[in-house]
């Protein structure tokens, strides 16, 4: 009996490359039509784009771009120092570069959750201080650089990283205040959070640039970068507060009761029991907030600060490079994209890891 069984292979059209193509691209008449339409659109847009960007393009610094129909990447190769670092003195660029490498390596180390411990916290603290010293100078024989001269990617990173670091504790306090049983404090927090979340960031930046100086006593002034930083912190804190509130509301009531029965007071309950669990739940949405904070720092262009976008525009206003906006904007779009892409990928990965199916 058994010898009669013949092993029939599946038809060639159902497996392998052909099978995959049939299954995924031409499974029905409608799909076939759509595939052909999309493929031809891609063919007629991607090929000319590649021709423009790679083949007909000029790459060397200071080449005469008016001669070619292709992209003029020499705008980047000639001006990358200004675009990336603004007015930072060009002879000591090793300092911001080292600082950025430090930041990136700290971020890469922090990707691995197994390494999250107190030492990592200390190394972040030490790293941030060293980065600050490197950028600011003034001690250890380093030439001092005014904060006003910080520009380009340094300013973008300063505003977003420092903004989020400072906004997080504030956001947690606001979230706790909103959950509080004291009506006065609750009202303040709700009012603040809803007010900030209801208005665009640009109105806060306007406030920091034109209204805030009026608030200060006579003779006192704070520089524009710091004022914008305060506005970004205030703005981000309100969003973090809402995210953290989500985590707090997700906590089981039993956790509070158990803490009470152990005789812990409010501070201890929050610090030892509730926040460690609640903050873990909200890590992925916090990364999303970091992404939007990073993107939102570009708005400081409107109040005239020299972040990555503004330094690019100042390059474009040079008569020699006028008319090559596409190349310049694509370059910084790439920088933003790479940063945000890694962050959002990371947040998705965390979401999967932290999802315990509950």
């Amino acid at each position, binding site marked *: 009996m058994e010898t009669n069984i013949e092993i029939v292979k599946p038809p060639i059209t159902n497996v392998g490359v052909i099978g995959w193509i049939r299954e*995924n*691209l031409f*499974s029905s008449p409608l*799909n076939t039509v*759509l*595939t052909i339409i*999309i*493929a031809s659109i*891609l063919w007629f847009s991607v090929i000319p784009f590649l021709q423009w960007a790679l083949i007909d393009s000029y790459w060397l610094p200071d080449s005469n771009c008016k001669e070619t129909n292709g992209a003029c990447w020499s705008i980047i190769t000639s001006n990358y120092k200004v675009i990336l670092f603004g007015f930072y003195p060009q002879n000591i660029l090793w300092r911001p570069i080292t600082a950025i490498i430090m930041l990136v390596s700290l971020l890469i180390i922090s990707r691995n959750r197994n390494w999250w411990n107190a030492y990592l916290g200390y190394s972040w603290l030490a790293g941030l201080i060293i980065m600050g010293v490197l950028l600011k100078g003034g001690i250890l024989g380093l030439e001092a650089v005014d904060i006003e001269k910080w520009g380009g990617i340094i300013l973008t990173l300063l505003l977003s990283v420092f903004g989020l670091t400072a906004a997080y504790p504030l956001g947690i306090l606001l979230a706790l205040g909103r959950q509080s*049983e*004291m*009506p*006065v*404090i609750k009202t*303040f927090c709700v009012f603040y959070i809803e*007010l900030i*979340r*209801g*208005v*665009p960031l*640009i*109105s806060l930046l*306007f*406030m920091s640039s*034109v*209204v805030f*100086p*009026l*608030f*200060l*006593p*006579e003779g006192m002034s704070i520089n524009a970068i710091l004022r914008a930083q305060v506005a970004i912190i205030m703005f981000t804190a309100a969003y973090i507060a809402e995210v953290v509130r989500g985590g707090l509301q997700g906590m089981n009531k039993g956790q509070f009761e158990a803490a009470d029965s152990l005789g812990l007071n409010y501070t201890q309950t929050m610090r030892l029991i509730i926040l460690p669990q609640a903050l873990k739940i909200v890590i992925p949405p916090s990364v999303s907030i970091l*992404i939007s904070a990073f*993107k*939102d720092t*570009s*708005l400081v*262009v*409107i109040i005239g600060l020299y972040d990555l*976008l503004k330094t690019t*525009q100042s390059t*474009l206003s040079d008569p020699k490079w006028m*008319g090559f*906006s*596409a190349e310049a*904007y*694509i370059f*910084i*779009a790439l920088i*933003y*994209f790479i940063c*945000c*892409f890694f962050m*959002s990928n990371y947040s998705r990965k965390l979401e999967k890891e932290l999802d315990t199916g509950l």
Partner: protein
Amino acid sequence: MSKAINNNTENISFWYDPDKRSVMYQIGAACLFVFVAWYLVSNTMTNLEKQSIATGFGFLNTEAAFEIGESIIEYSAADRYMRALWVGFLNTLLVSFIGIILTVILGTFLGIARLSKNWLINKCAAVYIELFQDIPILLQLFFWYAFFYETLPSPRDAVNPFSGLFLCNRGLIFGIPQSHPVYKYMAIALIFAVIIIFFMKKWAKKRQDLTGKTFPVFYTSITLIIGLPFVCWLIGGAPTEMSIPVLKGFNFKGGMSISPEFAALLLGLVLYTAAFVAEVVRAGIQSVNRGQTEAAKAVGLKSGQVLNLIILPQALRVIIPPLTSQMLNLTKNSSLAVAIGYPDFVSVAGTAINQTGQAIEGVMLIMVVYLIFSLSTSVFMNWYNKKMAIVER
């Protein structure tokens, strides 16, 4: 409960009584708030006096003395600030309204494409969503604005693909029907048709509930929406005269034009927000269990009915709340118009601040306007959630 404890243990000290403590904290917070507010206000008053800047909203009634590039109502530099701000407000509403409609359409397509079984469509949508989400909206606006300004020709060499449509760096200019009283009646007929459809739907549902007979609501609606205005147009004498743009001097006269600022703002906002809406739509569709579709087919519903009666009502419940927040985001992001020179509310208010120096009032106006938007959105959300909660079993 804490009172009961108090009575039993009288030796509890004043500072350790939770009730009294909480009152103390609150009084402390309120005092701190009042003190900080008083300090800031007094500083501001001294500063304003020193710089001799006026206070109050009196400036709204003075002459604005600046031109506004585009406006949907009549406006000139001789008008008052009130009118100028109103123009800005209407411009914000216009760009947000059109933007929201286009975003929802594009976002829905992308969300469905993201779930497509066709590998190519699926991946294209995924790349689009990732790409447009990860580039700051302001950068996208600058890019489109520069694109319109640098690649499009001057009005003299305008691209003219067919008669009555010109594309140049002054924007997109196209012919529109010459104004005629019949168009007003056509608009009224359209509104009338919508009202009829609303009641017809109610009636059809009631009849179906009572008798089980169905009524072709969809086809009747389409006939009414197209038919009523068309009949109106025929009765009005079927005017076909067009207002065609013509090049006069350096610019076009006649027709209607979409400025590059408006086009760049709209394009940037729509492309950016659609990427987020696509994720919302995808999540909404995925939230409906497969069994729902299978069950609906098992009871004999047609695929259109499955979508209309089973999938959409459930998916929309998940989609609508984040969708409204995306719409609100679009409205808030439209404030970036100030960076590319489209006269929205923030841009007009910014000019007013520069001219009068009354920064506090100006920023306050901006905040109030956007708070009105977000408060009305949250009122809508509460209403919607309540309505949905009743349906839920």
